[in-house]
């Protein structure tokens, strides 16, 4: 039953989803405007909301917007993004720069840094969308093998630091963020490994059939 569950059926059951899919660009832009203006001060009031809610939401919107690009444009990026390597490199680099504590402080008071942060997060989401499927398990594994340990170590450092790393945020908040980053890194690793095992098991089942002449 579950295996036969597919997107076209879901669309018949829930036409709203289809509408959402067709209107995803204006919706994503509206969500972006909401995040950038009325919700900005709320989400930047705490270190954990800033990094664990605002960052992922902007990355997700970057994903949605890149997914809506015309097929011709997406194909054009292929030559520059073999196996998604350039895209995932861009993502890893953006995430490492954004984990420098000074950036969180500067993004609150320095408009140029704030604009750079938003563009980098959108680009990160777009690069992820354009590269993830293309990458395959090996490149995906290499990417996550770099990003997740970095995230875990950053989380541990945030927890261990007796001093506040950001002048604008509370020490307790930094502790929560550190714990959440470690949990997130482990959770993403577990989910990816499970998905990778599933896909490997599936491909090994279909292999004999493909091997036949």
């Amino acid at each position: 039953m579950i295996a036969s569950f597919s997107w076209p059926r879901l669309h018949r059951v829930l036409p709203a989803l289809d509408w959402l899919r067709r209107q995803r660009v204006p919706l994503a832009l509206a969500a972006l405007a909401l995040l950038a203006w009325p919700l900005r001060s709320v989400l930047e009031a705490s270190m954990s909301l800033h990094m664990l809610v605002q960052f992922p939401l902007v990355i997700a919107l970057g994903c949605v917007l890149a997914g809506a690009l015309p097929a011709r444009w997406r194909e054009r990026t292929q030559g520059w993004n073999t196996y998604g390597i350039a895209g995932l490199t861009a993502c890893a680099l953006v995430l490492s720069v954004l984990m420098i504590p000074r950036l969180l402080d500067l993004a609150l008071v320095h408009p140029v840094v704030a604009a750079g942060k938003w563009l980098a997060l959108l680009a990160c989401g777009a690069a992820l969308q354009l590269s993830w499927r293309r990458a395959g398990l090996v490149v995906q594994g290499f990417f996550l093998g770099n990003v997740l340990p970095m995230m875990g170590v950053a989380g541990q450092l945030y927890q261990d630091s007796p001093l506040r790393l950001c002048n604008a945020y509370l020490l307790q908040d930094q502790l929560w963020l550190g714990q959440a980053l470690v949990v997130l890194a482990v959770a993403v690793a577990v989910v990816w490994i499970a998905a990778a095992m599933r896909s490997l098991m599936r491909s090994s089942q279909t292999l004999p059939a493909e091997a036949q002449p």
Partner: protein
Amino acid sequence: MLRTASLCAVLLWAAYACAGWLTHDYQVWTEEGARRLEVALKPVPLPPVTVEGPGVPARDLRALAGNGREVTIVDFFYTRCVTVCLSLGTTFQQMQAALQRDAKDAHVRLLSISFDGERDTPGDLARYAQRMQADPAWWRFVRVTDAAATQRLLADLRVVVVPNGRGDFEHNAALLVLDAQGRLVRVFDLSEQQLALDYARHLAEGGRL
């Protein structure tokens, strides 16, 4: 593949350059570290704000701390604070004792500025000074007279005060050394009390920055 590799190289260079700018060539990782480095490279003049306190009639902070004769070690605090300000108080007590002992330290002064000027009245400051056994010849307490000026002073000296939601504040407590012209020339960590004192003595004796 060549195009992918060259794009990766450009991305790596761009990230290296951005992170280098953000961390002052990989020397500091936090805004507080950057603040201390930037102050050491380029002294920050005090803004014109009026302060008052026990034994200090309302006057321009620059006249108090930049009178051309004395080097001042400044801290920011509020009287109801029961955490870091208390350790700042102890640090200042020890520095006061060191200054009182040594006659050649005649040109180093201590100044505690309250950033909660709305609640810390001159009476509160006087009581606090008494509790700290502050000798007004060496160590004075003031508040900024109005809220806008307080914000101006905090912004210029890059003191960040965050309300913690329980009526208290967390702030980047440090030892700020002002030269005789009233410019912030160094920011020392609380643990660098001896270094801050020695540096202030060196400046007061006519040493160079």
